[in-house]
């Protein structure tokens, strides 16, 4: 790449316009003063906190505890804090530091970065679905030895009080869940079932679900309620855990316990899935349509228009307790051939790398004590794993709904341990593949099952599974890297010396490098080093959890897997390319058009510029919530507008993130991006204003006006800016992440899974940091190639005013 190819037509401004009027000066002073005060206040607060109340050091032992507080927020946080305070009082000399990143997703991202850096928290939450992967990586400390030792010392930790199934959920022997060492003490758990709207059951003349109700009873109730005006029978979520539970009630599962092959293509399994799919798609209003992303899951029950919602655990209870419009209760999981249930549980685990194992264990005992569990239980969010607490009035509370707290306990008694495969990719594959048949309905059950089985089989033959790899020889690599760098420096230095300029030039050169030194240092430290390391990592298999010294050298296996064995990679690349193809030209055309408009001399243009730019200033969760609603298939704003427009020509608006996502998913994001073109618009505007007026005057003299003038004067003069913006847009379009992460999580299937989102999944959900590095490097190559292509292709058409 040549250096000064991109040229923004900007230049120095003349001295500022005449002094502003006194009034405006007053307001400006006021605003500046207020801003100064706010900044002073902020610095004061932070400095006072960090300097004067800094960590009280000393020779006390420090334990780090990390947890999340999803649905229960400040209350769960307070309960953990109270338990820690009790612990600190009872154990003088031990200090506990607490980290709460908020929700479970942020928690795991953070846990991984801390573990990768070799400083894991000592005690932390682990969900049962993550247990096999974490235990297999050896980052959790087995607890059995402590249990035995405490029992021998006469201070036993009474595990017999716990529901067996909650303990079994945290045993893992390297092959399957439910056997082997214990890796955590459960802090709470839940059994699974359906929540039902008592009012709707009464209106439809239905009896309330009995303890042993069947799927026939279930669907009869759903049909009866679906027949009521404006009502839907049931919301049936198809999360992997719930879908497997549904199959288990028919004595089936998606895979045998060792997960080597899949059972989804067995006729019985396909039949059970087909039954679910036809309830949803072949009947009106029996199940929710699966179209809506907003009104789905737990919240749809709140509308009072849905008879049954599930299969959910106990976690929805606190929000359902706020319902005032109707009565509701909890029903057990319907039975098929088998009466069964599973649990979802979270435990306190101890890091295998803790420096204070005994203190950490003592802390876990306190966190799982009767007192802590009683407090947690009162939140109503989960079942306490201790029977003594679960059967006390801390859990069985007749004053608040649900009235049938005992159903949770009865279901817990019959619950089995749900075995999870050691590869976290399994759940993700299952969800994306099977949901296409049972949630959005864009594929037949047979097709979706085949896709799932094929993808899992491909995973099994992955080059990364070939067996034992050598440890990455970091020492040798470092030595070689240093030697190479030194050699390069020597050669460069010699060349440098031979072509050195005269004395005056030398002083100038010193000054130049000195002033540019921040950039040089920054590039070396924050760019070259990380890029080099990530290139090396792309040749390894590394979990990103165990220290980087555990990385195994796999050669080109990551790249081989990406290009030959990973269908999802190609899907994601296709989705991203489709998006880029739409968003880049559309966005640039829109931005240029907007800039032309903004360049007109209309009164109040300043306001319009600000208004048009504003959306690109706003970011974050609130905006994502808004857009999710706009594109909702069932009642979204976009379809409310499009519907009447398309009706006369016999078309229905698309189900953007539902069954039409293959065609309309990426375009929805492209439309969203139009709303964010303010930045490009501003740069175009600057470019437009940089075109000398004489050129337009000359054009006018020659009688060139209107579109012709735009084509022959404006466009050529603007071409450097066009290239700059275009390249920035291409780069940006391949880096789409946040919107998809917040809005769709890549669903349905992988149809809105953008490249970087999949990269993030690999790194932080599947623990394949080496693989993610390889993906990042491929992305870099793709973007680089595109950029060079654009620059090459445009060379002849771009007009440079001041190419030095």
């Amino acid at each position, binding site marked *: 790449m040549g250096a000064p190819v991109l040229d923004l037509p900007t230049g120095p401004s003349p001295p500022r316009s005449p002094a502003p009027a006194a009034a405006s000066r007053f307001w400006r002073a006021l605003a500046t003063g207020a801003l100064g005060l706010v900044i002073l206040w902020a610095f004061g607060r932070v400095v006072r906190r960090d300097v004067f109340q800094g960590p009280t050091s000393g020779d006390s032992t420090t334990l780090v505890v990390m947890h999340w507080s999803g649905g229960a927020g400040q209350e769960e946080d307070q309960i953990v804090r109270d338990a820690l305070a009790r612990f600190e009082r009872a154990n003088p000399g031990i200090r506990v530091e607490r980290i709460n990143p908020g929700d479970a997703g942020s928690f795991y991202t953070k846990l991984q970065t801390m573990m990768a850096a*070799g400083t894991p928290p000592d005690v932390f939450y682990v969900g049962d679905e993550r247990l096999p992967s974490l235990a297999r990586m050896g980052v959790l400390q087995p607890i059995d030895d402590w249990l035995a030792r405490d029992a021998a010392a006469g201070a036993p930790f009474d595990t017999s009080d716990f529901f067996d199934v909650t303990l079994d959920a945290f045993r893992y022997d390297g092959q399957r869940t439910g056997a082997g060492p214990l890796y955590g003490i459960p802090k709470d758990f839940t059994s699974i079932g359906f929540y039902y709207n008592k009012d709707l059951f009464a209106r439809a003349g239905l009896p309330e679900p009995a303890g042993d109700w069947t799927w026939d009873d279930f669907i009869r109730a759903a049909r009866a309620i679906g027949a009521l005006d404006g009502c839907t029978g049931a919301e049936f979520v198809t999360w992997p855990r719930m879908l497997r539970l549904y199959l288990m009630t028919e004595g089936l599962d998606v895979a045998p316990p060792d997960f080597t092959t899949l059972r989804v293509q067995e006729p019985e399994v396909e039949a059970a899935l087909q039954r679910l799919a036809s309830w949803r798609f072949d009947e009106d209003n029996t199940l929710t349509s699966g179209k809506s992303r907003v009104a789905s899951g737990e919240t749809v029950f709140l509308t009072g228009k849905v008879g049954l919602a599930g299969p959910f655990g106990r976690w929805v209870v606190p929000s359902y307790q706020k319902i005032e419009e109707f009565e509701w209760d909890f029903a057990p999981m319907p039975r098929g051939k088998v009466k069964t249930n599973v649990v979802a549980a979270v435990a306190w685990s101890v890091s295998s790398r803790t420096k204070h194992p005994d203190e950490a264990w003592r802390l876990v005992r306190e966190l799982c004590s009767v007192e802590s569990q009683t407090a947690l239980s009162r939140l109503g969010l989960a079942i306490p794993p201790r029977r003594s607490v679960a059967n006390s009035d801390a859990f069985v509370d007749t004053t608040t709904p649900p009235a049938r707290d005992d159903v949770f306990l009865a279901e817990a008694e019959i619950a089995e341990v749900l075995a999870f495969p050691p590869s976290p990719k399994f759940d993700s594959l299952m969800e994306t593949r099977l949901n296409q048949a049972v949630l959005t309905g864009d594929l037949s059950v047979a097709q979706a099952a085949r896709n799932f089985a094929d993808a899992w089989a491909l995973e099994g033959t992955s080059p990364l599974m070939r067996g034992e790899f050598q440890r990455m020889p970091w020492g040798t690599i470092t030595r070689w890297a240093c030697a190479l760098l030194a050699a390069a420096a020597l050669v460069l230095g010699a060349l440098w010396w031979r072509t050195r300029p005269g004395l005056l030039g030398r002083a100038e050169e010193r000054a130049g490098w000195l*002033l540019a030194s921040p950039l040089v240092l920054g590039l070396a430290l924050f760019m070259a080093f990380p890029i080099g390391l990530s290139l090396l990592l792309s040749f390894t298999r590394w979990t990103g959890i165990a220290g980087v010294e555990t990385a195994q050298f796999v050669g080109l296996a990551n790249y081989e897997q990406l290009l030959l064995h990973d269908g999802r990679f190609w899907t994601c690349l296709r989705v991203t390319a489709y998006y880029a193809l739409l968003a880049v030209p559309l966005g640039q055309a829109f931005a240029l058009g907007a800039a032309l408009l903004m360049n007109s001399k209309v009164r109040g243009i300043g306001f319009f510029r600000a208004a048009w730019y504003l*959306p690109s200033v706003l970011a974050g969760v*609130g905006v994502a919530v808004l857009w999710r609603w706009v594109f*909702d298939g069932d*009642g979204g704003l976009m379809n409310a507008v499009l519907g009447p427009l398309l009706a006369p020509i016999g078309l229905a608006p698309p189900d953007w993130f539902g069954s039409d996502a293959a065609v309309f998913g990426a375009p929805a994001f492209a439309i969203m991006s139009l709303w964010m073109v303010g930045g490009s618009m501003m740069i175009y505007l600057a470019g437009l204003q940089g075109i000398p007026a004489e050129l337009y005057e000359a054009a006018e003299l020659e009688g060139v006006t209107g579109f012709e003038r735009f084509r022959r004067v404006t466009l050529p003069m603007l071409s450097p800016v066009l290239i700059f913006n275009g390249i920035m847009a291409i780069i940006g379009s391949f*880096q789409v992440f946040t919107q998809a992460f917040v809005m769709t999580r890549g669903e349905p299937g992988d149809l809105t899974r953008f490249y970087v989102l999949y990269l993030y999944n690999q790194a932080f959900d599947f623990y394949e940091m080496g693989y993610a590095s390889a993906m990042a490097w491929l992305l870099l190559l793709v973007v680089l190639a595109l950029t060079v292509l654009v620059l090459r292709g445009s060379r002849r058409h771009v007009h440079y005013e001041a190419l030095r």
Partner: protein
Amino acid sequence: MQRKAKQRFALALLIVGAALMLFPLWWMLVVSLETPARAGAATAGAGLMQLWPSDPQWHNYPDALAEVGTRRWDGFLDALANSIVITTLVVIATVLSSSLVAYALSRIDFRGRGVLFAVMLGTMMLPPQVTMIPLFLLFRSLGWVDSILPLIVPAFFGNAFFIFMYRQFMAQVPEALVEAARLDGCGHLEIWRRVMLPLCRPVSAITAVFTFIFVWNDFLGPLIYLHSEEKATLAIALNSFRNQYGGLEDVQYLMAVSLVTMLPCILLFFGAQRAFVEGLGKGAVKG
């Protein structure tokens, strides 16, 4: 006559566009002032298109802000103070370092300048995910985790995008101005401080605003580097808040907190937009 019609058309387009662009913000404001039931209905897409709050619930704002973090009010105030401190420092550092480097790249002739510039442009193409984990390992080894240093220190080494912008601008400052300063006995540092920085005020305004917005909204950086809750920024606090109030119930609280989080960006933009837009525009007059 024809010109007038054209102007009207442009004005109409501008108004429609502005309405479209501002609608989401307005919608968020409306939802944030609703009662729980109506806010839930509006976001559930139950056909309720609210354009005006029926009965503004102003208390939603204090109610929601008090619930940010785990300590009433302190959670919000701490997050606000942290965001202000980090953002202020990063903005100042970015403006100073980027303009200094750009000065060297545009006005000082030294061997390797072109290569350095090309390498810098290349780094702009790098997805941040590539460097995330290695950078964390680096800062970890420096012992900077759970401090604001990893968020601030890189800003002192310049930002490629802004260096590029400054460079384009400075390259076009008439040599006569620089020469005059040199004759007055100014060294490079003084020329940068006395001649370039004042002339580059529009670019500095853009740099400051863009940096402010980016740092203010940054989520992944603070999530990874800051552990203790007292050190969390507003973006982090908002995310935790979303998980408590992200459902259909209490969505008005989520909107209220989101709006308060965005407010500084909005204010800043309206305040700076004159310097910003006109700077860009006027600056383009070739010197």
